[in-house]
Structure formats: C-alpha cells, structure tokens
C-alpha cells in the first residue's frame, strides 16, 4: 500500500448519512479493469446527467473542489456492497482521506489496503467542519497521521481535533507496509496452526 503520513489538501463536504457503495460506484462499472482508471466512475450517477454532462449542483463538480483530496461525510459512509471498486474510484480521483462519524466496515478495511485513511470523528465535529467548508469552499484541512490529529484553520487560529486509528493499521499505513509480505513472515506459525487445527478437526479434510 502507499504510505500515508500527513496530508494538507482541499476538503469537500458531502455530509449525507448512509452513502452506500452503490452510490460511490454503480455496479455496472465494476466489470472494467483497474488499468483504465476508476476515477471516472466516482459518484457517477449523482455527478452526471443522463447525457453524461456534469451536474453543476454536485459538490465534486464545483471548481472549488477540483483539487479535493479529503472527503468529509456522514454516518455509515461506504455501507452496503463489499466492492473495492468504491475505494478504487476514490483513490483514482486522488482522494487520500475520508472523514466520517462511522464507516461501513468492509469499506473501512478496503481503504487501508489502498492507502486511503478513514478518519472517525464525532458527529458534531464533522457537522461543524462541513459547515465551515461550505462557508469557505475550497479551503484546506490537514490530516496528520503521525500526530493523530485533523487540523482545521478557524477564525481563532488552528484547531486540532484528535482521532484514533488502530495502532497496527496506523503503523502499516505510515510505513506503506505490504500486508501479504508481512503475513508471509508468519508462515511458520500459520503452518503449525494448520497442523494442529486439522488434527483436531479432521472431519474438515
């Protein structure tokens, strides 16, 4: 995975709850190979009219958010289907962090595998950040994984909001660890486990 340390970038507010992965990428695009890029599919049906033209009212279509790399959103973001294509679509659109009060769990796991940091912040904090981003479209946020803070610049100077990420995944993301490679270093332990396991549960063979 790509390493993630600290990111300062334009943040886009899309503070709806229960944004499912069918909305992030409609199923009909999942058949395409990754090599063609998935960025074009991100929020496709929200983003485009039937003739393919962009809808001016959709947040990511506004010029202020062209450079957005952080998404600020609502409860249970990425719920629904396990499609990793949802994360590919965000990654291929240059998003590297998603901030939400809670995440669909499979989506949450998929983020880490693709170098995207899912940040959980309390609901009220997100509402405040989203309101601020809407007042100042195109403004920046900083997500600092080394210090576990989101930095919002406000009228009274910078405000730091702490967040927690599981230590294991944090380390993996900071170092850009290759997870399969890491697990293969446990090969002996896995093999020993398997021997014992299949002896006990011989009926699984």
């Amino acid at each position, binding site marked *: 995975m790509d390493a993630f340390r600290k990111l300062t970038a334009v943040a886009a507010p899309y503070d709806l709850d229960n944004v499912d992965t069918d909305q992030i990428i409609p199923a009909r695009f999942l058949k395409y190979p990754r090599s063609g890029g998935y960025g074009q599919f991100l929020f496709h049906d929200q983003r485009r009219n039937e003739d393919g033209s962009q809808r001016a009212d959709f947040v990511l279509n506004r010029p202020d958010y062209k450079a957005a790399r952080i998404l600020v959103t609502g409860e*249970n973001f990425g719920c629904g289907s396990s499609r990793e294509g949802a994360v590919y679509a965000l990654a291929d659109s240059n998003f590297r962090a998603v901030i939400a009060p809670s995440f669909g769990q499979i989506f949450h796991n998929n983020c880490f595998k693709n170098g995207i940091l899912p940040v959980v912040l309390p609901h009220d904090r997100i509402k405040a950040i989203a309101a601020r981003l809407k007042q100042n479209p195109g403004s920046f946020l900083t997500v600092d994984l080394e210090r576990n803070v989101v930095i919002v610049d406000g009228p009274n100077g910078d405000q730091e909001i702490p967040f927690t990420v599981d230590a294991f995944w944090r380390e993996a993301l900071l170092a850009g660890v290759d997870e399969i490679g890491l697990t293969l270093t446990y090969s002996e332990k896995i093999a020993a486990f398997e021997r014992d396991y299949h002896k006990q549960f011989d009926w699984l063979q």
Partner: protein
Amino acid sequence: PETLFDKIWRRHVIHQQPDGPALLYVDRNIVHDGTFHAFEMLRARQLPILRPGQTFGTPDHYVATRGANAQQAPEVSRMVDMFARNMEGSGIHVFPRGDKRQGIVHVVGPEQGITLPGLFMVCSDSHTSTHGGLGAFAFGIGQSENAHVLATQTLWQERPKRMRITVDGQLGLGVSSKDVILAIIGRIGAGGAVGYVVEYAGSTVRGFSVEQRLTMCNMSIEAGAKAGLIAPDDTVYHYLHGRPFAPKDAKWERAVAYWRSLPSDEGAMFDREVSLDASTIAPMVTWGTTPEDVLPITGTIPDPAKEQDAGKREHIMAALDYMGLQPGARLSETPIDIVFIGSCTNGRIEDLRIAAKILKSTKVKVPTVIVPGSGLVKAQAEAEGLDAIFRAAGAEWREPGCSMCVGMNGDTVAKGQRSASTSNRNFIGRQGAGSRTHLVSPAMAAAAAVAGKLTDVRKLPNGGGGQ
C-alpha cells in the same frame, strides 16, 4: 462463559497483535465472477493460491439468466469467461457456468455443505453474512483482502463487539423471516450494528427452518453488522447431513459432537441486547433508499414535515423525490411496474414454494421475473411443478444467478420503474440507474404481482400462512 461468536473466534486466532487485530485462519473462501481483481493481484505478484482445496468458485453476478443463447453485451459475458480462465488449473472446486450446481455463492455454499457450523468463512461479497444461518462466522471482504486470503489462507481482523437480538413469540400468518429482519433493521437502523457481530436468538428464530435463518442472517449487513449468526441445532444438522462437502460417517459424528459445544453458554455476556416480539410484526415493505426506510404494509408514506431532525427530514425528502412517492399516501396503494423474486436473500426453494402458492391459478398483472438461486433450486422447483405454476400465471422462469438484485448481468429495472423485489438493497440505482426498489418478502412480492400494486398478502384468499 462464552458466546457462540467467542468460541469460533478463539479457535481461529493464529496470532494476536497486542491492542490490534488478530491473524485469523480462514476455513473456506468462495470466489465468484466479480472477484477478478484478487486474481489479478496474485498474478501481478506471482503468488500461488495456498489452499485451493479450501477455495470454491461459481459465477453468479454476471451470468445470463435467459439461458446460454441469451443476448448479453460482450463486455458482460466476457466476465464469466474471465472467471473460467481464473479457475482453470487452479485446483479450486468450481461449479462452472452450465453446471447444475452453479448459482449464487450464498445459495451454493449452504446447499453443497461447504458452509458448516463453527467455520470461519469469507467471500468477496457483503452478503457472506448469510452463512451465519448455519452457525458459521462469515463475512464479506474486499478484493485486496481476498488476494491476502488466497495467498495465505488468513486474514487480519479487529475483534468485533457482540450483540444479541432476541425474537420471541409466534409470527402471524403471511409473515416471514424476511419481515423479521426488515423490522429489526427498521428498529436499529442501517448503521445500528456497525462494529458488532449479531447473534439472533429466541423462540421465533429457533423455530425457523435453515432457509429462513439464511434469509435473516443475509441482511445483517444491511444493519451494518460484521456478521450474523444463529446457534446450530438439530434443524441445522438435519439440513446438512448428506450434503456433498459435509463430513460423512464417523467424521460426521465427531463434527456434530463438536458443533453441539458451540451455542452460547448460559450467562455469556453480550455488549448490546435488543429484543422483539414476533407477534407484533406485520409484512414489511421499504419506501425509501436505505433498508432502514421500512414500514409495515399497513403504514403510510412518511411526511418529512413531521420529522424533527433536520438531517432525517432532508433524507426523507430526497428519498421520496427519488422514489416518486407522496407523503401520507398509503403504502398498500402504491402501483408496481415489475416484480423480482430471487437473490441470495430469497432465491431458495422454500421462497419459490411460497410464491407458487400465491401465484397458483392466478395471473400476474405486471411483468414478474422469477430467478432461482442455483441450478439445484431450479431443478427442485421444476420437479415440484412450480415452474409450470409460474408460467401459467404469466411470470418468467429464468436460469440461476444474481440477476435483477444488482443488474450486473444486464437484468435491470428501467429508469423510473418501480419494483417489488425480494432482494436486499433498495439503494439509489441498485437495480439499474433510476430504478425504484421496494424490498419485500417472497409472499409480498407474489401478492404485488397479482395485484399490480403493493398489497397486504394477508388479505389475499391464498395469502396467509406463507412463512
């Protein structure tokens, strides 16, 4: 004292990171025609599949349901070809296109006895929670995670919290486990079980057949749960005995002895408890764009003006706009354009029997598409003459696959059309761009087909008793 989940989890931990995830041993992994990125990742790294014998494959999402000669876009049928190529020489147990055993992963797993109590199973599909109906701990994973499983037969996972949902009492006639799970999602919300594994318990659940349990666990993900689970019992052992991949003879006896040790111990602790009275549950129907937007069929479309919470009000307004519904209108007067009976939620033989009971000697008023969950379900239905009942009623009887649940194979609901569907998701565009989905039970879907509108199945002459 331990819960069912605790026991399964403990038995699969290879390595525990202090304050972090555990490395878990995966018993069985099922792959399908959408799992191609995982195979691509393995190839790119030249990694072999570690335990192909513990891996099973069948195409479902992209298969044509109008038979082999169906017109399908080449880029769609290509997906099933690609699946076949990925399976070739892999050593994976495959139920390929055209095989009688082919079908939806979550129908095939239980049907073949691949799914067993106490196993830890994965599949790159969120409805893998289905397999919890047999007492397996099973959940959906992404493609990177699947590449990891294929290469190592393990998965890093955080330990989820435990929730128990107890349903007691007698269900009314015409009310099914689909209605129970929809009622649960309505109660706790689409994010209500995020971070939890849910164990379903109580007399109502104990009384469910295996297929009803699979339906219930299937939609656990629709409440955000990591997985759904039901303690194995004689109903499960009876169902599994003699299935192709289930243990046999002396091994079967040893397996059952182990399985009997799995149910949650007396006094085991859950992090959250919810309970429902089955007798209060009516046939349910969704009105909005998330499964938590659900009401009894006797209800009326919600009025955003009456909602206090601003976020919820906005959601109701957006959902009604998308769905083309008026606040205050009676749900049971909503006209339907198309009916879909099938999917991993309700594409099994018992579901088809219920639909047939209601469709017998009647005519459908709207196009009705009936898609069996597997080739074996199809064969069984035909042996029982259900296909003849469906055809006589004017419904279409198709080949097995995911079909109109997700529309990836080209079976879509047209823009602006309204479906009554036995599937599991009413998301915006789920059944095709602009499609409007009402999730219902098989009995309610058949009733909607007969009436041409959403209707209370209990009011049909042959509608009661459809469990």
